[in-house]
């Protein structure tokens, strides 16, 4: 199962477990704020080779209709995907 963002952030004492086990894949914060630059995929140029998907350390690129899509909530802007793309389909743009 892919970890995903939850609405509920456990905060009160009764919501915090008194043992060390908890639900898997429980996310309450995004990583988008870490980014200074963002990868932008040009789907016209993308040939769906999947190198960006494979090498993204954060796993935020997924397959979609023989091409790829990117989850900006969790992309950190490392730039690895751009380096892995041999089709010039990814550009890094400054975050505004």
């Amino acid at each position, binding site marked *: *199962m*892919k*970890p*995903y*963002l939850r609405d509920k*952030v*456990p905060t009160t004492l009764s919501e*915090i477990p008194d043992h*060390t086990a*908890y*639900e*898997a*894949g*429980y*996310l*309450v*914060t*995004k*990583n988008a704020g*870490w*980014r200074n630059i963002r990868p932008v995929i040009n789907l016209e140029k993308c040939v769906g*080779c*999947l*190198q960006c*998907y*494979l*090498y*993204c*350390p*954060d*796993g*935020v690129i*997924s*397959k979609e209709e023989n091409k790829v899509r990117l989850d900006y909530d*969790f992309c*950190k*802007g*490392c*730039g*690895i995907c*751009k*380096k*892995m793309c041999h089709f010039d389909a990814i550009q890094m743009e400054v975050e505004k």
Partner: protein
Amino acid sequence: MSLTGKTLNEEEFFYGHKACAGCGGSLAVRIALKVLGERAVAVLPAGCMSAVAFNFPQLCFGNNAMISTFAGTASMLTGVEAGLRAQGINDFQAVGFAGDGGTADIGIQALSGAIDRNDNILYICYDNEAYMNTGIQKSSLTPFGAKTTTTPAGENIRGNLRPKKNMFEITAAHGIAYAATASIGFLNDFMNKVEKASKIKGTKYIHVIAPCPTGWGTATDETIDFAKEIVDCGLWYLAEYENDEFILNYKPTEFTDVETYLRKQSRFAQLTDEDIQVVRESRDKKWERIQKNYKVK
């Protein structure tokens, strides 16, 4: 059929973690779990990969995963495997992800014991060549010449004086069921080794080089380039050990210059030409032994 980006499980199991941008270790964990699938039970000792994944309530593993003591990755894996088996559960893979310090220093005894018992576990060491989570201290897998906070570069000493320990051959010397080296710069090779290991009964050890931009002093988008170059310049190699035999999986036709590899990383910035010659010579010696003792595929 061999695994590629096209055939790999599309599900993500390591997501939303707080590793630095461009972290090589997190890519190794992510990819290994995609190969093993949701029945993987992961054990992570103290180190970057547990620190970035378990920050309650931000829990970044989609499969069962837990933190062990720093020294106890392999012993917790032994317990997980025996405990599930005792309950009649058989469709799982106990997998450990430990750093170089957690493996080659403090965790080596537990690992050695598990190999000796031939427990049915997969141990993956993600090697970023220092104790990164506590701020870059030398481990026995830090290479010669690297500057860390415990091997600083000064007037008389220029970084780490000791060579990198050979964990791959140490595990092989136990007569382990399967051992392999890998690099996150060669993911197809890594994925297929993880898959192969998951099908072998007994103890499996995979040692994967995973560059750390923060500790190596490199740009975040260069992680994969360094993971490739370390293999291309001969300072790391892709190999397997099985049935009493060492196999070299990949031989660069000609090594790229180690100097180019070293000079681009700030941890090696202080090295003199003589230091670099030392690195070159130790590489050549290592490869002489590989040519002699490894079957070249």
